[in-house]
């Protein structure tokens, strides 16, 4: 059986010559009766286990033996009987079960050997120690799982309370700084490699601001006389920038400058398609 080959690979550990034959001899001899489970119930029964450790714990607890002094021979026999039954009933058996079978056989065989005293004179470790440690730790976690599940939790025993907030909270608006805009523009230029085409100087920026202002005024107040565009300019510098803005707007065909006859007042209005022919000469 698989378990045997695994053991054979262990090297310095003793290999049981005929484990199967001896296994059933021991089973009949030493197996406590209350370990017995009818084979019919086996499949249902095995579904209840989380794995070999779980099955072993069950066998140990069922036999009512001390976990610190497990009788390895009957336990191994009992376990192997289940594994055998599982293998005949099911094609697939988790590898963990076979590994555990190997481990049990190995421990059992080591228990049969006389224990040579170590040079240091210390007690030699019980071959079962590692198995017992794992069983105890697993059993502890099984209990912890049950305890965790017993804690009242949200969506089972409780619901969170959370009533509606009346008005939608005033939306939190992102902050933007002038530097953010600078960086955005920078990124744009880098990406488009537009540095050569889009140089905008400080003055030009003022011009563009005035351009927007003029358009906004025309939108709100309708057509204006040319001089009306300048009456709000407090300084000469403003006048100049404003004038540049008017020229730029005209150049970009965003406004129309109209003069019906020489020396008559010049009127400014937003560009219209139907009068495209009277648009002032682009600068």
């Amino acid at each position, binding site marked *: 059986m698989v378990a045997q080959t695994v053991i054979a690979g262990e090297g310095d550990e003793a290999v049981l010559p005929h484990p199967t034959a001896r296994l059933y001899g021991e089973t009949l001899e030493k197996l406590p009766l209350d370990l017995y489970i009818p084979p019919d119930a086996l499949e249902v029964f095995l579904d209840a286990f989380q794995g070999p450790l779980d099955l072993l714990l069950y066998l140990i607890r069922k036999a009512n033996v001390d976990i610190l002094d497990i009788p390895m021979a009957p336990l191994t026999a009992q376990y192997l009987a289940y594994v055998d039954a599982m293998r005949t009933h099911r094609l697939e058996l988790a590898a963990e079960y076979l590994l555990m079978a190997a481990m049990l056989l190995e421990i059992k065989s080591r228990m049969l050997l006389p224990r040579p005293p170590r040079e240091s004179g210390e007690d030699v470790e019980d071959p079962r120690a590692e198995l017992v440690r794992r069983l105890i730790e697993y059993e502890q976690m099984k209990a912890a799982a049950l305890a965790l599940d*017993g*804690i*009242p939790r949200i969506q089972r*025993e409780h619901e*969170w*309370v*959370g*009533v*509606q*907030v*009346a*008005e939608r*909270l*005033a939306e*939190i*608006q*992102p*902050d*933007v*700084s*002038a*530097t*953010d*805009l*600078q*960086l*955005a*523009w*920078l*990124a*744009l*230029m*880098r*990406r*488009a490699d*537009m*540095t050569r085409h*889009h*140089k*905008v*100087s*400080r*003055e030009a*920026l*003022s011009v*563009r*601001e005035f*351009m*927007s202002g003029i*358009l*906004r005024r*025309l*939108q709100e107040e309708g057509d204006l006389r040319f001089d009306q565009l300048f009456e709000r300019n407090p300084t000469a510098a403003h006048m100049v920038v404003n004038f540049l803005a008017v020229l730029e707007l005209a150049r970009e*065909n*965003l406004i129309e400058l109209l003069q019906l006859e020489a020396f008559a007042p010049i009127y400014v209005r*937003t*560009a*219209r*398609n139907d009068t*495209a022919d009277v648009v002032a000469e682009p600068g």
Partner: protein
Amino acid sequence: MSELPETTQPTSSPSPADIKRVLEAALLASQDALGTADLRKLFEQDLDHALLRRLLDELREEWSGRGIELVQVASGWRFRTTADMQPYLDRMRNEKPAKYSRAVLETLAIIAYRQPVTRGDIEDIRGVAVSPGIIKALEGRGWIDSVGYREVPGRPALYATTRRFLDDLGLRTLAELPPLAELQKVMEFNDAR
């Protein structure tokens, strides 16, 4: 944890006070309004409609004057915060300022530096389509508005930044935006690195 009743079995009819206690808890725990049909499902026994109505009115009365009120809306009953709680709640939540996406910032930068511009202009510069959502967000914020139309087919709107934009950024005029000449230097600096 272990002393909790496994599953409370309401064997006898619950008293009106018990019912009210359940109604209150259910309404407080619900994000959505609960209709009377929902509320009646809470109970095994059939709940008299008039009684339910009376108890809800009582609850509303009991909660009046507090920071939460029970209100009846189209879809049923719900608790919600009262208006006078708003400044407090705002204060608590006004902590994490969101951030605009790169698309929004670039659009805003283009409008700020190149105004007045159409959406088409912005798309030309950015090289990608500008979603209407971006323009709407900036308009909603009061930072840009349409100042006219370009007289080309489709008459696209011309966008410009507003006074509020300047106010919010702490600028007096657009000329106070970082000049692009300096940008040039920043860029060279970055390229040099």
